[in-house]
């Protein structure tokens, strides 16, 4: 078994052209949709498709480097969708003039799964995410937290929770920066740097994603 070959395997080289063509086609379809679409919200959804085209472009290189480049691409997409959708909402609110007096429509249904599933799934996800660490773990554990806070019954948004989450994630970001510096300034302590980096990124991503959950909480609130 070869651990690391000298050249990229011929299978990957052979798949490159079809993959890129698929990427181009997806991009084209998405862009076509955008150029004929009038509704701003629909355009936002369609940009998701364009992002998928981008991921294919990067993935098709098929090396470890390509894989580690996919992660920034994913994160950028996620981040931009979040920020832009928020701007869209704020714009529409200003346009319609309805700001605070807007009453969220409560949900009246009672699914069994919403009572039991969230805690179970959230615990599994957070545990698994903690084991993974890094971006992957962060995304997974974050999704768990997000899902949890989204489906439990809490009214309103305590702003203290919010600022706490944001603060922790900011500190975790610093932790990660320290880890990065350790790796270059004191290469002999690479293990420390690795741990700081991995768990810094992990905590940061988890709490960031948790904030989405807090945002969503009053959105999908039950009666």
């Amino acid at each position: 078994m070869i651990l690391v070959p000298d050249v990229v395997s011929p299978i990957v080289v052979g798949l490159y052209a079809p993959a890129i063509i698929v990427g181009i086609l997806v991009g084209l379809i998405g862009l076509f949709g955008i150029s004929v679409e009038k509704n701003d919200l629909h355009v936002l959804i369609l940009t998701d498709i364009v992002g998928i085209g981008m991921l294919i472009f990067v993935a098709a290189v098929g090396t470890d480097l390509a894989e580690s480049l996919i992660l920034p691409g994913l994160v950028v997409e996620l981040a931009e969708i979040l920020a832009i959708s928020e701007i869209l909402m704020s714009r529409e609110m200003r346009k319609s003039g309805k700001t605070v007096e807007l009453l969220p429509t409560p949900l009246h249904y009672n699914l069994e799964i919403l009572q039991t599933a969230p805690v179970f799934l959230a615990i599994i996800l957070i545990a698994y995410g903690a084991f993974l660490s890094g971006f992957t773990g962060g995304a997974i554990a974050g999704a768990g937290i997000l899902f949890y806070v989204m489906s439990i019954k809490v009214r309103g948004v305590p702003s203290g929770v919010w600022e706490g989450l944001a603060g922790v994630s900011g500190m975790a970001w610093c932790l990660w920066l320290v880890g990065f510096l350790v790796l270059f300034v004191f290469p002999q302590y690479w293990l420390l740097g690795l741990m700081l980096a991995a768990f810094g990124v992990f905590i940061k991503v988890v709490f960031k994603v948790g904030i989405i959950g807090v945002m969503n909480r009053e959105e999908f609130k039950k009666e």
Partner: protein
Amino acid sequence: MYPFWDLINLSTVSAGLALIGAAGIIMLKKPIDKVIMLALLEAGLIGMIVAAKYLDVAMAGAIFDPISTIILLIAITKINDIREKKPNPRGKIHCLMFMYGSTPDAYSLLLGA
């Protein structure tokens, strides 16, 4: 001996599953039906991951499958709620409704007639 049977393995079955699921999502009109077909599609994906022998990835996928289903379900329920509340968003009708004091349901019946 029977080369045809060799083609039926986990990969091809999952591929079939995924394709059927995709076709279902596209063809069915109602969002709730689409969510069910989405489960089929994701089952296909998980089958493929299992065929590739990455069980931990399959596990993560299996956990996220119900999550996205639930998210979609909640959103669909909520949107249906909202849409039922205002059957016709045009201001004129709201106005009329106000004048006659009729419930939205009664008014929609009226319109239908």
